[in-house]
């Protein structure tokens, strides 16, 4: 018993050391919030099109009637990282045929139209979320955020922040492959 007690400090050190190792891991992002929607049905919303844009708006029902997963990207013209992410998303649409819907978050329609005409419009549908209420329904904390929604309306994946850089892109691609939106290899 006495001898076992002597091992106690070692045990305590191991437990603390384990926590430190976990806490100091540079890959750990403390601001990473788990989404409640993963494996849950997508939220209810109904967004009108952006004023002055041909692209139609969309509601929850529009996510379901397709046969392929849909990528829902929350963006805004005032969001600088969105500009960088735009090229990545366009690439996914033109080269791999991903179905991309956009939620134009708290943006002036005029600015959104100008932004899309300068950079190009990869979105099949764009809903205008002027007061940010749909954003709350989706539980977003900022822009950009990107969701992958399965054909049955289940949210499969959520990416917070811009999908820019090799690490982020490969993570997102892996999620696309897993959800069946693209097939592996044709990049």
């Amino acid at each position, binding site marked *: 018993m006495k001898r076992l007690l002597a091992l106690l400090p070692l045990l305590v050190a191991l437990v603390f050391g384990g926590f430190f190792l976990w806490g100091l891991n540079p890959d750990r992002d403390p*601001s990473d*919030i*788990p*989404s*409640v929607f993963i494996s849950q049905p997508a*939220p209810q919303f109904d967004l009108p099109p952006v004023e002055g844009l041909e692209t139609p708006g969309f509601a929850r029902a529009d996510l379901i009637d397709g046969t392929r997963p849909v990528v829902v990207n929350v963006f805004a013209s005032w969001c600088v990282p969105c500009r960088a992410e735009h090229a990545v998303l366009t690439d996914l649409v033109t080269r791999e045929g991903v179905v991309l819907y956009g939620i134009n978050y*708290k943006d002036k329609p005029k600015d959104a139209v100008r932004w899309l005409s300068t950079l190009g419009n990869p979105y099949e549908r764009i809903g205008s979320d002027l*007061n*940010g*209420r749909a*954003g*709350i*329904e*989706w*539980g*977003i*904390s*900022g822009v950009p955020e990107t969701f992958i929604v399965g054909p049955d309306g289940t949210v499969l994946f959520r990416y917070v922040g811009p999908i820019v850089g090799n690490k982020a892109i490969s993570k997102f691609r892996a999620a696309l492959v897993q959800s069946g939106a693209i097939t592996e290899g044709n990049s």
Partner: protein
Amino acid sequence: MRRFFLFTILAMLLPLAVQAVEPDEMLSDPVLEARAREISKELRCVVCQNQDIDSSNAGVARDLRLLVRERLVAGDTDENVIAYIQARYGDFVLLKPPFKPETYALWIAPPALVLIALIFGLTIVLRGKRKAPIAGLNEEDEQHVTRFIEAQKDRST
């Protein structure tokens, strides 16, 4: 000089009065507004994560404050409002974590550790006490010592 001091103190108190809640957000009904403030203090801002939405200037925090008030006006109870937001942002949005299987360790560990420490400490203290008393000399020893001293005295003289 005194006026200067007064002014400085007043200036230093000023930040305490600054609030994130803007006048146009507030409800005209003071009872509902008070409830909204209480609820807002329990909800975490998802952008600046260690602030409640009541004191945060972030855009999403403002939206959530407006949403809280909207739900209250619609006749929701405080619990309903919190559940509504929790359904969209998860447990993370609650500044006070709920008590459920995932959080048992969080809630139970501190009192359990205190209990263990108390038991540990008490046993050590009590064991120390039991050993402590050094028996005084009994009658027999006393006589023995006296005889010994007497014997020594006799020898030295």
